[in-house]
């Protein structure tokens, strides 16, 4: 069973995000990037399923510029067997990315499409869903537990009311939530070995995808600065302060 795991290069979670002075976006130049943490979880799940013998081949895939190769190398160090780099510079529309990922999935004839539930840059939470719709496949998003059995997947999802268990026929799209697993530490020998694994370079045109205009970002602004706090001495003062702000 082949699994395609989508991994996105995103600004590292430790970086303090800064909005560009002209409001055209956030500063990404010279800023540390790494694999989107939810995609790491998806990668880890795929590798564990392969270790259990449920998956036979893992293909990591990414859409983006030349620097995304680093992200693919990390995925290969995790344990992906090979990688596909849909190499396109510049801003990529979410729907275009989803179309490209869907085309690659179809081309590979894979059974499972894994991704993180969202990327920590835009927090859009839509790629997995769009890929499923484009391919008319069942989807199980926000997975906290995944079991593969024959041509079925049993997925536990975290929903507001608790846990929900879905059974989906394969091929299917599965997106990973935070508590699905704890990604492993990449060891140096695996990091070194990853350099020798193949990366197949594709493009929108090679996959037959026409980039379309979709979303236009008109302005990016920083959230309002937190105003200075006050220190209260007693509970009464606290209650009075909260009432004063109309919070009680």
């Amino acid at each position, binding site marked *: 069973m082949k699994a395609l795991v989508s991994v996105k290069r995103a600004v590292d979670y430790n970086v303090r995000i800064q909005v560009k002075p002209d409001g055209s976006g956030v500063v990404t130049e010279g800023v*540390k990037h*790494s694999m989107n943490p939810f995609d790491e979880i998806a990668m880890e799940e795929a590798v564990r399923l392969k270790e259990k013998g449920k998956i036979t081949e893992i293909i990591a895939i990414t859409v983006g510029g030349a620097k995304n190769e*680093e992200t693919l*190398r*990390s995925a290969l*160090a995790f344990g992906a067997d090979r990688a596909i780099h849909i190499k396109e510079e510049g801003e990529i529309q979410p729907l275009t990315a989803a179309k490209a990922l869907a085309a690659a999935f179809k081309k590979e004839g894979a059974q499972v499409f894994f991704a993180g539930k969202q990327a920590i840059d835009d927090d859009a939470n839509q790629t997995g869903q769009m890929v499923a719709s484009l391919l008319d496949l069942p989807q199980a998003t926000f997975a906290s537990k995944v079991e593969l059995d024959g041509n079925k997947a049993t997925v536990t999802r975290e929903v507001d009311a608790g846990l929900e268990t879905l059974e989906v026929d394969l091929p299917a799209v599965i997106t990973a939530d935070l508590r699905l697993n704890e990604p492993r*530490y*990449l*060891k*140096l*020998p695996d*990091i*070194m070995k990853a350099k020798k694994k193949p990366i197949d370079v594709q493009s929108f045109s090679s996959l037959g995808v026409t980039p379309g205009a979709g979303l236009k970002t008109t302005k990016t602004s920083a959230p309002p600065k937190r105003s200075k706090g006050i220190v209260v001495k007693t509970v009464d003062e606290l209650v009075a302060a909260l009432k004063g702000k109309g919070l009680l």
Partner: protein
Amino acid sequence: MTYASPFYDKDHEEFRAQARRFVEKEISPNIEAWETAGSIPRELHQKAAEAGMLQVGFPERCGGIEVPDLFYGVVLTEELARSGSGGVIAGLMSHGIALPPICHVGSPELQARYARPVLEGRKIAALAITEPGGGSDVANLKTRAERDGDHYVVNGSKTFITSGMRADYLTCAVRTGGAGMGGVSLVVIEGDTPGLSRTPLDKMGWRCSDTATLYFDNCRVPVANLVGRENQGFMAIMLNFNQERIMLAAQAYAFAKVCYDEAMDYARSRETFGKALIRNQVIRHKLVDMRMRLEAVKANLDLVTWRVSNRQIPIAEVCMLKNFACTSLEWIANEAMQVFGGAGYLRGAKVERIYRETKVLTIGGGSLEIMKDLAAKQLGM
């Protein structure tokens, strides 16, 4: 401080990211508890092995992970230091001084029996050279090993031994021959050998690292546990000195950087006289002076690390690097404490612990004075 460097490439940075995550998750939250307990749990060795941290730089035949240069060790040291505890580095990494003689000159049997389980995180190793009678003068150590059939009978004592309370295996320097360096051998003594007893030492710093005095009373040690050849132990010890001293310099640099970062954060957030501390020129200048020393130490550290990675043997430069890094740490830790004021004097502050732990770095692994003497000799004075 991430920047393009001639010494660190993407692999180093990927390894750094892994080490950082390991330290943030498995080490930093527990430091206070371990400092109070006076030791680190065995479990940590296992976790560090699973994460691929313990093995870095050791040969594959011993269960290690071979790396092309010493910068991986520097990266690991820097990341471990971010926890703000020297004790955790000393205790978790005591095999970093105990195993190299076994891996360099030990028999394949010794490597399989003693190096591998330690690099798998199942056993703990310590290096026992220093004696109550003296540490600097290694060539005159007194612990004797007399041959008796297939065994050595060991009598004497060792002190200041890092991981000495917990160690399963002790790489121990003993006198098998006549006076001086030509009579010293290394043997591996197992922790449960009858006649071996241990007492803990209470220290100013490195409190989560267990340090012990060891007593050997007619300990019988198989001759097969000899590391390398008889009476050639001094060379086996020396072989690792450059690397050990570079790692001590890396530690000093890394703790100095923690002090600088902490002082910078504090100076930005602390308000006095109605404005942030950092708005005072005096404080900014202090920070620049700290940074200036940091930059100089780092440049020196990277260059000497590069030289030793490239099979050069710059002994004097390594000695001077160790002294420069360790004395710079003393200076920087002192300034960081000053920026913190009273808050830096309280237990729990990183700068407080680092300040207490500056001295051990100018004493252990070749003291300041011994380093200067050796450098002078090497420079033909």
